[in-house]
């Protein structure tokens, strides 16, 4: 019974989102803190160093941490305001049990664990172990991600564990594994400094990774040419030497056309291709017909610009290619990634100073969280849950019989679909808000309402957790020790600054207690986060993501260690592939043939406009944290529909007019923001908002066949102007939209 226990409006009144502002005079005691904790921001994959000021067991402010090498004190507005998630009036302080008709009531931990255990055992006895699924997220530390992976397989005994990285890094991960046999940024950002050409493919760097801007512009100051591929003129594209405003969903056509030019003009590193690569012929054949005229017609980019990009990229001596969700959130996300990697391999510019390639990992622990068994098909060390040797090794580390290790389960969106079909009846979620972050969320809501039993662990009552039967108040990032792995592959320390407030508990202690109550306690004896990390080190040993040589002390002494680090005397590996020994079975880097195909949903007479989605600088992902921080909300208070003046004029749409956007999955209204900085055939709406203000009511659930990432970045829509001027945001309150 997972319909809402009372109206969304009632739940919002009790649990928020409410906006937290600092008191005008500042938090008492900030000038004389009890403690100054060097840690990292809780948000994106940059994991900027930051110092948190602690007074009376509460975080009361921040100070830049100028010694940390990546960001040297630099922060974005989310980092500056992140401390306000602590001391927040919406914070969950007790376990809450659902009360039909009125909402939730506080109960004791003992009652909560007893209810939870009974329901897990009941559902699994009735419908089998896999009928209880778990969804997790990579804002969690490495220790917690590892623990969740082990917990789901050993204590919950389900194969159906997946995570919100499925909406984030999986296309890049799959592409990297196919091409290199290993999934990590090949270089640190220091290799940007003297790259001659930097190509950014589908990444709104200055809004989603603001502190990375410094590294890119440092290269420009040194003379680099910057190419940015994006349907919109974003802040980073504004300063590009060449902006390629691509039609959404046509990315692999562009990269195929550039490879075609590289071959045509012989801008190839023949030695590297012959000695260290395989598959070049397939890649060459696939792009044989991709001349400039064809590319212009498919991508919507002027052929002169495509040629110029190829002329810069092809013969350069050094270069760095970066990509992110803009090419990855597609039903051919993996193909787009492989098409980019083909350009890097053809140039031979990898594994050398200022020759780099990387996906810009999105979530705080998007890198580490995708390595240690948090995914439906994976075991720690980025091992394969279907590989007999890998299963055997991890079963030994965990002290279980290999036959008891579940196999490959469903991916995140498939879990929701299986709930909708009635095959999955129970759900445990932590650190995931799929009702905002998954596409076609009317389906997500319908599925949640069919759950027999749903328990959510979180620090705030996010929109999805409102459907729960039981809510367990967990911990914020600053309330537990641990490590995360940054987008560069640097393993850094998250330091506990304060204790969870009220009766809230650390996520780890919650998972350990559930494991004990499910009878698996002997596999879950840890007295600290470091003890979990030390088991993770062993579990990752010999895997491609090898952390065995990394210790807490070593991280401390070096401000982070880059994996792979196979032994304690190993310094870590900032730059991959210097030895040209790739981790594929044949030791070579693999080209792939990438024939172009259209996105899953293309425009037609009924739905003639392309809808694409993304983020804004002041909000983060599903907004569970950032829609509760006052100044971040005020900076960009509601989702705006960016539309080109030509398209707006053709439909008679006025600035700030409410426009109804209709797709095959739903409809929603957004205020028009008329700007010349977007393609004429495309509209953009950011996705951080819930309820009626969620653009994910409209996006499509088409998945990449390999990575199973949803196609957030392109679908077909129709626009209907309403004739009504949008109300001011204080009336709309989009941050808490029911």
């Amino acid at each position: 019974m997972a319909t809402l226990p009372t109206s969304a409006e009632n739940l919002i009144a009790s649990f928020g989102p409410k906006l937290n502002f600092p008191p005008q005079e500042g938090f008492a005691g900030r000038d004389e803190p009890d403690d100054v904790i060097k840690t990292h921001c809780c948000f994106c994959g940059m994991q900027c160093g930051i110092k948190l000021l602690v007074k009376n067991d509460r975080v009361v402010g921040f100070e830049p941490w100028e010694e940390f090498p990546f960001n040297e004190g630099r922060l974005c507005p989310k980092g500056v305001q992140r401390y306000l998630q602590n001391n927040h009036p919406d914070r969950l302080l007790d376990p809450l049990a659902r009360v039909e008709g009125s909402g939730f009531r506080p109960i004791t931990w003992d009652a909560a664990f007893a209810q939870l255990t009974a329901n897990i055992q009941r559902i699994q006895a009735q419908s089998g172990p896999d009928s209880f699924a778990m969804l997790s997220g990579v804002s969690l530390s490495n220790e917690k991600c590892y623990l969740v992976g082990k917990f789901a397989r050993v204590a919950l005994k389900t194969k159906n564990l997946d995570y919100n990285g499925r909406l984030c890094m999986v296309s890049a991960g799959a592409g990297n594994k196919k091409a290199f046999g290993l999934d990590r940024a090949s270089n640190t950002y220091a290799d940007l400094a003297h790259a001659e050409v930097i190509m950014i493919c589908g990444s709104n760097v200055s809004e989603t990774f603001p502190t990375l801007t410094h590294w890119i512009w440092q290269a420009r100051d040194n003379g680099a040419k910057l190419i940015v591929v994006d349907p919109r003129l974003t802040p980073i594209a504004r300063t590009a030497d060449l902006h390629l405003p691509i039609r959404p969903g046509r990315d692999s056509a562009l990269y195929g056309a550039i490879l075609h030019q590289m071959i045509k003009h012989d801008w190839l590193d023949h030695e590297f291709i012959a000695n260290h690569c395989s598959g070049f012929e397939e890649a060459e054949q696939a792009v044989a017909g991709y001349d400039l005229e064809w590319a212009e017609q498919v991508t919507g980019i002027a052929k002169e610009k495509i040629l110029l990009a190829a002329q810069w990229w092809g013969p350069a001596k050094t270069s760095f290619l970066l990509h992110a969700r803009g090419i990855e959130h597609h039903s051919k996300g993996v193909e787009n990634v492989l098409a980019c990697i083909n350009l890097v391999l053809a140039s031979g510019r990898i594994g050398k100073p200022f020759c780099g390639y990387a996906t810009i990992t999105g979530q705080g622990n998007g890198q580490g969280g995708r390595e240690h068994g948090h995914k439906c098909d994976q075991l720690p060390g980025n091992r394969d849950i279907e590989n007999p040797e890998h299963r055997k090794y991890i079963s030994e580390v965990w002290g279980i019989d290999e036959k008891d290790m579940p196999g490959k389960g469903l991916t995140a969106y498939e879990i929701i679909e299986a709930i909708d079909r009635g095959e999955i009846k129970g759900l445990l979620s932590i650190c995931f808000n799929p009702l905002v972050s998954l596409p076609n969320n009317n389906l997500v809501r319908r599925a949640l309402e069919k759950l027999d039993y749903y328990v959510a662990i979180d620090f705030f009552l996010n929109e999805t957790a409102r459907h729960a039967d039981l809510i367990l108040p967990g911990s914020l990032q600053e309330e537990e020790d641990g490590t995360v792995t940054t987008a560069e592959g640097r393993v850094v320390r998250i330091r506990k600054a304060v204790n969870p407030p009220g009766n809230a508990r650390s996520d780890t202690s919650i998972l350990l207690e559930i494991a004990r109550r499910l009878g698996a306690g002997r596999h879950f004896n840890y007295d600290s986060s470091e003890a979990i990390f030390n088991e993770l080190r062993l579990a990752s040993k010999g895997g491609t993501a090898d952390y065995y040589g990394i210790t807490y002390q070593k991280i401390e002494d070096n401000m982070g260690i880059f994996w792979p680090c196979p032994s304690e005397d190993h310094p870590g590996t900032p730059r991959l592939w210097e030895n040209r020994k790739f981790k594929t079975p044949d030791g070579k880097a693999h080209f792939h043939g990438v024939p172009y195909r259209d996105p899953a949903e293309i425009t037609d007479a009924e739905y003639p406009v392309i809808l694409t989605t993304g983020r804004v600088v002041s909000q983060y992902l599903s907004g569970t944290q950032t829609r509760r921080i006052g100044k971040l909300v005020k900076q960009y208070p509601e989702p705006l529909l960016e539309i080109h003046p030509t398209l707006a004029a053709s439909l008679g749409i006025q600035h700030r007019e409410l426009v109804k956007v209709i797709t095959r999955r739903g409809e929603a209204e957004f205020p028009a923001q008329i700007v010349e900085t977007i393609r004429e055939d495309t509209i953009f709406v950011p996705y951080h908002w819930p309820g009626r203000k969620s653009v994910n009511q409209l996006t499509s659930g088409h998945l990449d066949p390999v990575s199973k990432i949803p196609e957030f970045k392109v679908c077909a829509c129709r626009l209907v102007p309403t004739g009504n001027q949008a109300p001011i945001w204080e009336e709309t309150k989009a941050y808490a939209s029911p």
Partner: protein
Amino acid sequence: MSTSGFRLDQEFFLDPQRCIGCHACEMACAECETNGHEPMIQVDYVDRFLSPQTSVQLCMHCEDPVCAKVCPADAITKDEFGIVHSANTARCIACSNCVQACPFGVPKKIEPMQLMVKCNMCYDRTSAGKKPMCATVCPSGALFYGTRAEMAARRPNSTPVNQFHFGQQFVKTKVNIMMPKGATELVIDA
């Protein structure tokens, strides 16, 4: 307050073209309780219809500050390090002369406080040898605080400029703005 830590070799460099509009500087500035959580630095779109370009403005700390000259209450002073301080709270009569006179549009009258406030280059931080908060957090280098040599090494294609012509008015400032290499002054309204 001890001023022994103020480093005269450190200068402020403003590079508006690098502004990415993230507002980290405003948020960080507003953390200071002496401002009553009001930012003393402003980020605005130039013309959002045409471009995502934003620009950033903070007090330029003029050599001969007009705000101080027009103040009828002698509330605004420049110190030995060239910092033009926010109005003395005991003297300010909230007449807004400074708000009207500043060519950069910096001073603000905070209505509930009936007081003019402006950037004092994080005097609590700079006088202790630290960087101003906005320049510490700025993720794109639009705001930088350091030595002239550091800036020259970082921005080989730009020159710091601190002389401005606003029509007939000539202003020389402590804060530099970064201009194309070789520029010597900025003429705003000839």
